[in-house]
């Protein structure tokens, strides 16, 4: 196995975004919420455009509209005015103040500004909760932005009262369909959960009239407050939730359980074992049926999938989850690339490769890489299939290799956001897509 870290100054076709979009995503999973980005107008418009194209839902994001003056005198007056306007006009239950590279570089102290705002406007402050989130765009990627946002909500809202007998689930940047699948599994296990946060309905909403002011669904502020009283927290994606899980453990003694995204067999089993550990609930027969249906599907298609060479790229949790599932299917993940500079990704991949006894010399693990790098590696050592988000289409087209679209974003196809990729049922769906794509490419 060769571990490749970034070797160039320039990033060429890097499929990664900045922290604010991750924080916006996390906020949109809260019922009646308005993300307020403290930066230039583009800092809201660009993420809105991309999230709209991915989810095919309205995405409203407020902006403090910082201009030259604010870069000299600071953005406090813009932020105060924005908070006043949003509270008076939209009455949200939650406003998240999300910084940018601009407001972090000018050095606005958003916590101090919001504290003063609350003191000076007690009547307004009583109407909407405000959470402040530092998301400098020059550190990490959207992955860290999501992690920081959930952490900020947990630190600033969670309040210890009395045990609620629930567990907290931090889904990470997965599909609305994935969140529904998590809910399905927990319902079968008779476990009540608080989702930090829940985009299953806010970003996949039924179309019916009259339109409500805010979309229905989403985690309520009360539920976030109550997360301090849960039996435990499962961070489904470790890079997108562990910070909040750790905060809840340290501050409120809620046990943290940091896991791998449940793609495929073993990761889903581990997820259910963790639920059992936290709640004492047994895995019911119906879930075991789902498990064994996945086994059935894996066995049925095993001669097609076995030996298929794949390149996988994505956010670290998705890339690792996909790599693990392809191993389970007898495929060979020849190139695995993540854009996030994860400290654990390479060692996790090494452990996985050792477990499956694969030929290490041939395998490339690219950490903090870009699609230009991945493309070079694919040219050196071709694969049968690429799995990743839609930006992989340029390599796929040039090399005439099929692309199975998994991960964020998917702006050029319909329906991805509705699907579940995780859990036993999601894995069956993903397996079917993988195997049929391989078959079609050989016909």
């Amino acid at each position, binding site marked *: 196995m060769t571990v490749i870290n970034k070797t160039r100054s320039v990033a060429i076709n890097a499929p990664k975004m900045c922290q604010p979009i991750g924080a916006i995503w996390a906020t949109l999973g809260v019922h009646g919420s308005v993300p307020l980005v403290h930066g230039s107008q583009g800092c809201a418009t660009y993420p809105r*455009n991309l999230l709209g194209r991915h989810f095919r839902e309205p995405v409203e994001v407020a902006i403090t509209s910082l201009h030259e003056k604010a870069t000299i005198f600071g953005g406090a007056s813009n932020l105060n005015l924005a908070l006043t306007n949003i509270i008076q006009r939209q009455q949200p239950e939650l406003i998240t103040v999300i910084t940018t590279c601009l407001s972090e*570089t000018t050095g606005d102290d958003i916590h101090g500004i919001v504290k003063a705002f609350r003191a000076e406007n007690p009547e307004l402050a009583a109407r909407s909760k405000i959470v402040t989130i530092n998301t400098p765009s020059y550190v990490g990627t959207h992955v860290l932005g999501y992690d920081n946002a959930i952490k900020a909500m947990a630190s600033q809202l969670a309040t210890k009262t009395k045990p609620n007998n629930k567990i907290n689930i931090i889904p990470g940047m997965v599909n609305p369909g994935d969140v529904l699948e998590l809910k399905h599994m927990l319902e079968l296990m008779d476990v009540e959960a608080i989702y930090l946060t829940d985009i299953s309905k806010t970003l996949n909403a039924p179309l019916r009239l009259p339109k409500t002011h805010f979309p229905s669904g989403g985690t309520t502020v009360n539920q976030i407050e109550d997360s301090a009283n849960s039996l435990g927290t499962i961070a489904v994606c470790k890079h997108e939730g562990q910070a909040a899980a750790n905060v809840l453990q340290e501050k409120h003694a809620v046990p943290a359980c940091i896991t791998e995204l449940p793609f495929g067999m073993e990761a889903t089993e581990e997820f259910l074992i963790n639920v059992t550990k936290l709640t004492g609930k047994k895995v019911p027969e119906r879930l075991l049926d789902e498990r064994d249906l996945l086994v059935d599907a894996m066995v049925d298609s095993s001669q097609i999938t076995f030996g298929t060479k794949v390149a996988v790229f994505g956010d670290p949790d998705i890339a690792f989850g996909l790599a693990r599932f392809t191993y389970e299917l007898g495929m060979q993940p020849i190139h695995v690339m993540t854009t996030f500079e994860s400290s654990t990704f390479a060692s996790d991949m090494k452990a996985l490769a050792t477990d499956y006894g694969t030929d290490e010399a041939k395998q490339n693990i690219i950490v903090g890489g870009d699609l230009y790098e991945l493309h070079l590696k694919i040219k050196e050592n071709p694969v049968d299939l690429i799995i990743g988000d839609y930006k992989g289409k340029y390599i796929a087209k040039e090399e005439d290799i099929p692309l199975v679209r998994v991960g964020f974003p998917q702006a050029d196809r319909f329906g991805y956001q509705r699907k579940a990729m995780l859990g036993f049922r999601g894995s069956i769906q993903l397996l079917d897509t993988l195997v049929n794509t391989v078959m079609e490419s050989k016909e």
Partner: protein
Amino acid sequence: MPLILPECDKVVPERQKHVYLKDIRDPFMIPVCNIATIPGDMTERGCTYAGCRGVVGGPVKDVIQLQHGPIGCAYYPWDARPHVASGTNFHLANVFSTDLREPNIVFGGEKKLYDSIIESAKAFPEAQGVFVYATCVAGLIGDDMEAVAKRASKAIGKPVVAFACPGFRGVSQSLGHHVGNETLFKQVVGTEEPTQKTPYDINLVGEYNIRGDDWLILPLLEAMGLHVVCTFTGDCSIHDIAKMHTAKLNVVRCARSAMYIAEMMKEKYGTPNMEVDLYGIQQTADDLRQIAKFFGLEAKTEEVIAKEIAEIKEEMDYYKEKFKGKTVMIYQGGPRSWHWPSFMEELGMEIKVVATTFGHEGDYEKIVKRVKPGTLIIDNPNAPEFEEMMLKYKPDLFIAGVKEKYLSYKYGVPFLNGHTYESKGGYMAFKGALGFARDIYQALYSPAWRFIRNTEEAQ
């Protein structure tokens, strides 16, 4: 009072001066425009970087599009605007970023910028130059991008053009258009001479080939006997921009984003310019006649117009019949909000609301001239205002961009993406007008609309 305050703006009364209901008693009034947005008003505006990188520089197909800043602003415009090109889509498929990190914010990013230019040029030797765009952070940390660009240009032997377009400058993306024009004019225009010159050389300025718009208009111009030196900047090579000073006339489509360069050329080279719409049948015919008159090509042009109209007339008449009495709301960046009112009327539709993101006085003067009394004109509108207008006017169609698209659908209002079309081809000139009408027809008459439930009516 012709200036009205929408219900949703009761708490932001400053919005009143931006909302003008065209009134026969005050028919030349325009709303206040091109000023800073009120923080937190849910504006749809973008930034100066977006205007420069996404609109003006981005369509140039054979240069490395290098963003100088943290990664996000490189990612978001990546293939977001379908300014397609012939021969290559290098500019859509590839984005380059200096990917600035915390240490660069503290110690500066000039070295990283220099190395990035050298590495990119090495990775893609076929690229004909490098465009470098500043983001907010590049502006704040004070990197001397122009000096780095000069040094790097010497090293790679190709033009390296630095744009001073940090997002916080100006009040909207409009300033980015200006920066883009000025920079390209100063650094690229006039640096190459064409091998052949004709008396019929023109530039098509402010036309970006969204889903092939250019390919609908250029064949007509050629059939009239004209030779297009440069389309600024749709389907455009940096070499075309270098030669554009030799044209006899600048035909300007998007006057908001590109009249700057036409005016600069007028001053330096004496090149006259002519504003056109090129949307809609009558407007396109009028525009072509205006251009023909300049060059004395009237007879040939009449043939071109007659042939084009004959080809689309039958299908167009069918759609017009279907559009009778339908109402429409138009929200575009700038010029398309004045290109389209006459076109919509030609199609038989009635305009209820017209709005622009970054229009200046000139844009609103044209809008006001082209709409009937009773039409609502909104400057720099925001989401709550759209929601109110959709409920109040119940338009049959909303034409805006992707950010408004799904909001429109949630109100049960048929929608057309006027920014990036999302159709199979362009909307410009005669065949584009037919394509536009076809897409409107498909939006209005989709059977999907009949299945929407209204839970209040059901009770």
